[in-house]
Structures are given as structure tokens and as C-alpha cells.
């Protein structure tokens, strides 16, 4: 994959991520806050973006979404991924919900 292709892929991923996030917030704000792991202020901000603003944000060479696991959670998933683990999703949900939500920098 050359650089131009990579940029295009990133922009596409960004755009669908932003569109999905905005859709989620508009449909069910409380649920979206939990699923996206953001706080109320950020949800209001993303939910209020216009399509033009979304496009502008997405047209970047950086990915807008990032990994939400810390090492421990990741390690937990990797070490047991081929075993038939008891309640794996429930476990990761418990660990994930404990993490602080993304917030706007003050």
C-alpha cells in the first residue's frame, strides 16, 4: 500500500467513524456515551457537527479513533484468545466501563 492509498483509507475510516459516532449520539445519547467512552460535553460537540465540519475533520492523515484498551486488558484478551473463555465479553465490558471517559481538554 503506497502513501496515497494509505491516506485515502484513513480518510474513509475517519469519515465512517465520525458519521457513525454522530448517528449514535443523535439516536440515543446516553447509550452512545457508554459505547463510545466519551463524556457528555464531547457527545454534545460531536452530535452538533455539521456535515461540512465532519468532512473537514475526516480529511486528515491521522486516524481519529484510537485503541481503548490498556495493556492489562489487551494482555488478558491475547493470552486467552484461543481458549473458550468464560464470559469474555462480559469481562472486557467490566474492565472497559471502569476506564475514564474521553473528555475535552480544559
Amino acid at each position: 500500500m503506497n502513501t496515497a492509498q494509505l491516506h485515502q483509507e484513513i480518510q474513509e475510516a475517519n469519515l465512517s467513524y465520525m458519521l457513525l459516532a454522530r448517528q449514535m449520539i443523535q439516536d440515543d445519547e446516553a447509550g452512545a456515551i457508554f459505547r463510545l467512552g466519551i463524556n457528555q460535553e464531547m457527545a454534545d460537540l460531536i452530535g452538533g457537527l455539521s456535515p461540512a465540519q465532519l468532512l473537514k475533520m475526516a480529511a486528515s492523515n491521522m486516524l481519529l479513533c484510537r485503541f481503548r484498551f490498556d495493556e492489562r486488558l489487551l494482555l488478558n484478551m491475547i493470552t486467552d484468545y484461543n481458549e473458550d473463555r468464560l464470559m469474555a465479553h462480559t469481562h472486557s465490558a467490566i474492565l472497559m466501563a471502569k476506564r475514564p471517559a474521553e473528555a475535552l481538554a480544559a
Partner: protein
Amino acid sequence: MRNKSVVTEAYQIQFSIELIKLGARLQLLQEETALSRERLIRLYKEVRGKSPSKGMLPYSTDWFISWAPNIHSSLFMNIYKFMQENVGKNAIETFIKSYQLYTEQVQIDGEKPVLSITRAWVLLRFFNAKMMQVTECKECGGEFVIHANELCKHYLCGICHAPSRAGKSKKNIVAAAATHDMGLAMAH
């Protein structure tokens, strides 16, 4: 208690319907709304098509400690705490939303919600009364529900340290055997 405001009453009826649909018992509704008992019973009959069940609410804190209930109530508690911190909604809306998210999460794992909405509500009351608390598992770092003031310096959660018979009820074994047989049949 009489409602002065029609708007407040309409709002309370609305979330009562939501709670009844999720399987809430009458006592929960009586505590959370200012609607009269008669109206709540009528509402209940209309929504569910039958009379509300009678009898006392479950009142034991021990239920939340046994294996499967503990994991389910810990999951619910984690979701609820997250919602409480990050979503600017009132208490009852936060509760309903957290319970919905909990049932959804459990279904992803192909399980039935062990924690009923009434139990979830009772759990929150135990937390408010400081009869229960959460503690961190030393292995995974997740927070789990335990009795208040329990000795828990080296606490290990039920998922990191599952008891040998955990999740192997008769029903589960039969289901597993059935899928195994189906796999064999498909292979032939």
C-alpha cells in the same frame, strides 16, 4: 402523595411503563414514582396483561456474592457508575438506561440476564445504604461487588478465578453436547 403537575405525572407514567416492560415489581414503582398504588396496578395490568406478582422483594445481600449473580451485578454496577459519572440524566433515567445496556451486553455473550431489574434496583439500594461495595480484582483490575467491610486484600474475581463447576449447569452441558452433535452431523 398527589401530583400537582400533569406534566410530571405524564413523565412518571412514561418511565413507569418503561420499568414495567423491563419486568419491574410493583414495590419498585411505588418507591420511584408519586403515582398512587391503584393507578400503578392499572398501568401494570394494561402493559403486561396480568396482575403484578405479590410478596416481598428479595432482600438478601448474599445473592449478589454467588458466582454468576456476582459477575452480572458487577457488570451492571460498572455500567451504572460510568453512566452516573458521564451522562447528565436524572437518577431513574440513568438506572433504566444502564439496565438496558446491561441486558444488551449479556446477550452478546449468549446468556440470559441473571440480574432482574428489581434485583438491580435492590443492589443500588444496598450500595446507598453502604451494605455493599466494590473492590478491585488483583489479577484483572476490574471492580467487583462484595459485602461492605469485607477483608479483600487479595481479592480475585469470579472470572479470573472461576470455581471448577462454574458455568457448567445441567442446562449448559446439554446445550454444549447438542452443538457438538450438530457439528459432528455436519461433518459427516
